[in-house]
């Protein structure tokens, strides 16, 4: 038990990491998009849990809410809407490319890993208190992030919100355009 107590954080990490990778692999290999999506959901939630371990409580919440809630619903919604099952071809993978792709992916991964690991060794180490304090006073992580977000990073924050807005409009336009296209084609519009 002592081992469990002493290394609780490590054990949690490995569990979460394993589930994360499992989910990712599921996305890669599951034939049905619905299954793939559910598998992706697992990854999202586990990544959120991993955030918790690094004292990023706010991020964890956002991860679950946005990914697990918003984006996932969006995926599922689209899957339902376009009836993927009927449309998807029987061939799941691009078989002729697959080997090459795996080689390329792994190669790139290794190279990036090199870069990052060097980065880890090159950088110093903090105690994490800064992640919970603002202006010297110890608060929660949410307050700390909020303070930084709305002071130092106010302008980028606003810009990102515009990006989101534009994306939203763009999504609507894509929907409309094709509607117009269909009208011209004589079919019934939505």
């Amino acid at each position, binding site marked *: 038990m002592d081992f469990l107590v002493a290394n609780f954080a490590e054990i949690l990490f490995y569990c979460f990491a394993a589930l994360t990778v499992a989910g990712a*692999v599921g996305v890669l290999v599951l034939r049905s998009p619905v299954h793939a999506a559910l598998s992706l959901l697992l990854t999202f939630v586990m990544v959120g849990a991993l955030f918790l371990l690094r004292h990023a409580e706010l991020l964890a919440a956002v991860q679950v809410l946005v990914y697990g809630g918003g984006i996932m619903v*969006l995926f599922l919604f689209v899957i339902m809407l376009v009836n993927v099952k009927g449309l998807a071809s029987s061939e799941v993978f691009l078989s002729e490319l697959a080997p090459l792709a795996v080689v390329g992916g792994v190669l790139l991964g290794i190279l990036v890993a090199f870069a990052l690991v060097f980065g880890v060794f090159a950088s110093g180490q903090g105690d994490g208190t800064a992640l919970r304090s603002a202006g010297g006073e110890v608060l929660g992580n949410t307050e700390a992030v909020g303070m930084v977000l709305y002071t130092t990073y106010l302008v980028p924050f606003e810009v990102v919100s515009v990006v989101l807005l534009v994306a939203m409009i763009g999504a609507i336009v894509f929907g409309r355009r094709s509607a117009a296209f269909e009208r011209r084609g004589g079919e019934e519009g939505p």
Partner: protein
Amino acid sequence: MIEATHYVVLSIILLCLGIIGVMVRRNFITVLMSLELMFNAVNLNLIAFSFRLSDLAGQVLAIFVITVAAAEAAIGLGLIIALVRLKNTVSLDEADLMRG
């Protein structure tokens, strides 16, 4: 002790899976999901380094990444709908209007 290295390795694995997924899956929706995987990989990294450096910038950046990911998902799914309407397929290799 969990080091940043752990996180880095995990994130690299996720990234690789994502890249491979993007390249090998035919289904556009799954390709998008793979992209989301890559985003998550990046976020993991950011959080890890944020903790290590005791710097909130990493978390803030992660929030931005999530936002962009949401935007990307919205656009991408919109594209899927357009593609379905236009060519009645979700296979990415059949969307080849730009072929030279």
